[in-house]
């Protein structure tokens, strides 16, 4: 067993884990943050994307132990005082959600992009989101939602 401490959605937390526990399992099962979804479990679909020290990464490829001392943000951490994050609102407004299973991963991948690049081009958006699969929407509206959020955040 290992004892780890990290910052989760703005709060300092700690947990006892097995060496082999994956980050996604700790987040979903122990912290009950089930917004983060697992689909492929091997880094190919992006539905488990979270922010680790402001980088969008796959929580299915991350061991919980690797979160030690880091700042972790999941989809649940975006809303501030009852206000949706600009990305969440833009996904709703642009109609970029159908079944919603891919949406938390899409939004976290986009969040990672906007933190590094507040004014991305359409191509930069496609590149940052290329590792996120959606079985419903066809991606066009997802790209538009990210642009819309970027525009609103800058104005």
């Amino acid at each position, binding site marked *: 067993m290992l004892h780890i401490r990290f910052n989760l959605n703005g709060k300092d937390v700690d947990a006892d884990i*097995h*060496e*082999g526990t*994956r980050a996604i399992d700790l987040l979903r099962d122990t912290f009950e943050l089930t917004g983060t979804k697992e689909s492929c*479990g*091997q*880094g*190919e679909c*992006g539905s488990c*994307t979270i922010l*680790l020290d402001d*980088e*969008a*990464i*796959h929580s*299915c*490829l*991350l*061991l919980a*132990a*690797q979160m*030690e001392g880091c700042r972790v943000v999941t989809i649940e951490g975006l809303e501030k005082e009852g206000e949706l994050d600009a990305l969440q609102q833009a996904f709703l407004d642009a109609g970029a959600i159908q079944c919603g299973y891919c949406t938390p991963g899409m939004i976290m*991948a986009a969040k*990672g*992009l906007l933190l590094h690049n507040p004014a991305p081009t359409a191509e930069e958006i496609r*590149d*940052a*989101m*290329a*590792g*996120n699969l959606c079985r419903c929407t066809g991606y066009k509206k997802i790209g538009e939602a990210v642009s819309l959020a970027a525009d609103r955040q800058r104005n």
Partner: protein
Amino acid sequence: MSQALDCLAADGEALPLAAGTDLVPVLRDRAMDRARLVDLHGLKELDYIRFEDGMLRIGAMATHQSIAASDKVKEMLPALAHACSQVGSAQIRRRATIGGNVCHASPAADTLPVLIAAEACAVTRSKEFRKTVLLEQFITGVKTTSLPQDSLLEEIIILIPEGGWKGNYYRLGGRNALTIAISSVAVLKGSRGIRAAYGSMGPTVKRIGAVEEYLNSCREAKRSILRVLAEQNLSPISDIRATREYRLDVAANFTWLGYRELAE
């Protein structure tokens, strides 16, 4: 660094863990709870890209993203910046390291054709020794290296010719993100002529001397001859993604394309 080396030396079964994008899925297939890992994430001193004494030095913990975006790499070995930009998806590139890519030693690893064509060396460290080996010799087989269990890869060094290494990296995948290379070729030109190295075309990434001799001595490279040389020197497999013949065609065509682009 010395703490990580102590941990590895003290436990003969411990494995180094960089970002874990190769290792975590592998461990999951085995009984992961018993794995003992030495997390290298805190080794910030191995996350660097430097140019010193005519050598490009890239620390093992440098990420694909930082290499792809590095002005130094773009100037001195642009093919490597391009290769790193082709790895996985943004989520993978922002975290996964060159050290993990090299030590995992996949025949399809995207950094290896460029590094091997540029005659890169691996610098390794154990508690007692610091060694420098030619990367082509460091990689010994499919996903195996000559690195002893108690050692770490510290950095990759590449001698940069006057004006930098010219040339590019060519890779065929299925779609843009998340497909490993079906066939990949680096065609580079340094002060001693053209170098060509091949990925996904056999158990290890390797240069072909006969191709290099031909490219350096012919007046104009012929695709048909490059196809024969590929057939004689490479041993790709046929699998669900591509046949052996198709991989050989692609490798020969990429070599020809690389040669033509160098001539322009």
